[in-house]
């Protein structure tokens, strides 16, 4: 019995002993499997899974750059000329609209649109989105919100907005806003587009499974570089007054167009640049004639006529070939190479000084000056005054004019006509820049339209005036000033005068070249007055240009009075003390 008990105990123990190693092996296998998985996921394929996890968490989006704004001067405060404005747009989700007819009716009343058109947008019940109207007014937005229509929602959009409307429209141009700060078309919006548009940035953030941002995660990305903010040299009040005078005189004389430029002669800063007709940059898409967007002050060229005579005279004086008292004998005409140049209205002045030549605007007198200087020197000096090349103002589509007629020194008649402003073409900006050189002591300045640039980092860059070159001496500049004062006091510029001030300048009534061949248009003229004031220490130089006035022929009746009205305003606005005795103002 003892041996049997021993055998039973031994058998039991053997079975038990077999299970243990078996369990051990099982656990070993499972453990090995687990370890292998851990190794595979965390070591061997670590990079792969880590990237997948990151991609699921990582969210990337672009931060748009705001287009830089543009400001004018306004009594020391900047006035916004171009800003980014938020407008609401209304859209419908047709598949959420239960009663399309009722919705269309309500929206048509509020938005002033055709009910049928809106109903058309709601016709497809599976459609997820249809835009109804953009750029809602505040009133429309409020009324839409009040309706609380299912399937009708508002969307915020940003547009370029010009609070001043037509003011300085040719200077500012217009722009559309887009993904990367928009794009400018015409004007400063185009010329400074790269500075204005800025640079968008990309931001990487980690988000949880619910799409919520994880605040303790590593966000990568910088704030966007918003566009630069520009402050123009244009003075808001001067610009407005200039445009008012332009509208008034254009209507009065039924002129085809007008251009006026006001410049600070010492610096070349443009204080006003007005053209008529103009446009509203807020409604540029409604304009059918794209040529309206071109700025005639810098883009259109014309034969300037007698406003060129002071330039020719300054060249002659600076070359010491003539002086204000130099005399010559006028016979009323000059013939050259089969052509005959006559004085205006066929007048004959006889023995005349150079002062009288400018006073009476004697064409033959200018030929005398040009002959004294010589063709080669005359052409060179004219080019030094900036004619025949762009001024360098940073505005788009600037023209350099045309002095090609002065390339062949054998054709003398071209030089004679150029001496009194015909046969060569110039831009209004070139004329006013040249007169600024006459006014400021003889230095040609680069016209400037931007005063300062504020960058995204807050730093402000002031644009300094640029002296291009000296074109005449200080003495010549003073002499010309006295001669031009005579033109206003004794000559054809009387209506440009402002009592109490020494206003100087010159009229010009130019013929208009035919576009369909040689010669000039019959009955068409361009009247100009270019001048500056006060004669000593001039603060303003102005060009007034009237295209084809219908009721008067001569610039002394069209451009000169408009110049006088504007100059009076400028001198009073700048609080410049009168230098001559005040006389009662006479109505013009």
């Amino acid at each position, binding site marked *: 019995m003892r041996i049997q008990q021993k055998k039973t105990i031994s058998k039991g123990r053997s079975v038990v002993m077999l299970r243990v190693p078996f369990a051990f092996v099982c656990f070993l296998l499972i453990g090995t499997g687990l370890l292998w998985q851990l190794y595979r996921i965390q070591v061997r394929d670590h990079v792969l899974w880590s990237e997948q996890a990151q991609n699921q968490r990582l969210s990337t989006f672009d931060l748009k750059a705001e287009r830089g704004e543009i400001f004018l001067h306004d009594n020391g405060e900047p006035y*916004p000329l171009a800003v980014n*404005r938020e407008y609401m747009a209304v859209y419908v989700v047709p598949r959420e609209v239960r009663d399309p007819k009722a919705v269309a009716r309500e929206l048509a009343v509020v938005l002033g649109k055709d009910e049928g058109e809106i109903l058309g947008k709601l016709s497809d019940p599976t459609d997820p989105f249809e835009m109804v109207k953009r750029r809602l007014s505040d009133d429309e937005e409020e009324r839409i919100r009040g309706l609380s229509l299912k399937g009708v929602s508002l969307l915020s959009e940003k547009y370029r907005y010009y*609070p*001043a409307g037509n003011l300085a429209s040719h200077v500012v141009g217009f722009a559309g806003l887009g993904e990367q700060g928009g794009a400018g078309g015409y004007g400063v919006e185009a010329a400074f587009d790269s500075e204005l548009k800025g640079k968008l940035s990309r931001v990487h953030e980690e988000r949880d499974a619910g799409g919520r941002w994880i*605040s*303790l995660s590593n966000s990568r990305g910088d704030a966007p570089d918003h566009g630069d903010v520009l402050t123009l040299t244009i003075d808001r009040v001067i610009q407005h007054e200039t445009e008012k005078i332009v509208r008034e005189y254009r209507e009065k004389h039924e002129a085809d167009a007008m251009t006026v430029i006001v410049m600070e002669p010492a610096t070349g800063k443009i204080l006003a640049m007005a053209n008529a007709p103009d446009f509203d940059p807020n409604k540029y898409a409604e304009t059918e004639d794209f040529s309206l967007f071109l700025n005639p002050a810098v883009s259109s060229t014309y034969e300037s006529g007698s406003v060129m005579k002071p330039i020719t005279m300054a060249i002659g004086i600076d070359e010491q070939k003539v002086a204000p008292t130099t005399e010559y004998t006028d016979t009323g005409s000059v013939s050259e190479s089969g052509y005959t140049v006559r004085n205006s209205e066929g007048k004959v002045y006889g023995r005349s000084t150079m002062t009288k030549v400018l006073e009476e605007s004697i064409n033959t007198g200018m030929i005398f000056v040009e002959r004294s200087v010589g063709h080669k020197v005359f052409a060179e000096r004219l080019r030094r005054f900036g004619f025949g090349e762009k001024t360098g103002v940073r505005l788009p589509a600037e023209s350099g004019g045309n002095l090609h007629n002065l390339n062949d020194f054998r054709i003398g008649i071209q030089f004679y006509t150029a001496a009194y402003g015909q046969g060569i073409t110039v831009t209004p900006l070139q004329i006013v820049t040249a007169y600024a050189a006459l006014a400021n002591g003889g230095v040609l300045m680069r016209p400037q339209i931007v005063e300062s640039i504020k960058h995204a980092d807050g730093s402000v860059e002031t644009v300094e005036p640029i002296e291009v070159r000296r074109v005449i001496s200080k003495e010549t500049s003073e002499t010309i000033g006295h001669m031009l004062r005579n033109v206003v006091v004794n000559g054809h510029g009387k209506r440009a005068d402002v009592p109490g001030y020494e206003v100087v300048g010159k009229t010009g009534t130019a013929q208009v070249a035919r576009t369909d061949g040689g010669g000039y248009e019959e009955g068409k003229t361009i009247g100009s007055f270019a001048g500056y004031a006060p004669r000593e220490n001039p603060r303003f130089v102005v060009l007034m240009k009237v295209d084809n006035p219908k009721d008067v022929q001569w610039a002394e009746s069209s451009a000169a009075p408009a110049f006088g009205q504007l100059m009076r305003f400028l001198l*009073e606005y700048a609080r410049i003390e009168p230098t001559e005795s005040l006389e009662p*103002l006479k109505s013009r």
Partner: protein
Amino acid sequence: MMVPGIHFQKKTRRRVLSEPVSGQSGFFRADMSFLVLLFFVGILGTHIYSVNSNAVQGYQVRQLEKEIAGMQEENARLKIREADAKSFQRIDEARESLSLDQALNPRYFEERDVVASR
């Protein structure tokens, strides 16, 4: 008495750890372990609190940033309204609607004028 086939084994008594050994108190040992555990729990708790607090502040900062952006937008809207109000176009329209006359030929008195100062 010896019984064939049956073996007796002498029982030995194991000593429990908590029983005092030459002068050391068992209560002191229990207290030390608890303190150590409490210390590590405290560290962990402080760390979790700090992380959570940072996360909350992060969301608060984001919320404040949104509010600032909203105020800046509102500021920009008001500046545009101000510019609209100051525009010469609107002033001219208002002048016409109020039937105000425009001064065409104003006369200016000199400051030195005795009559004007009385």
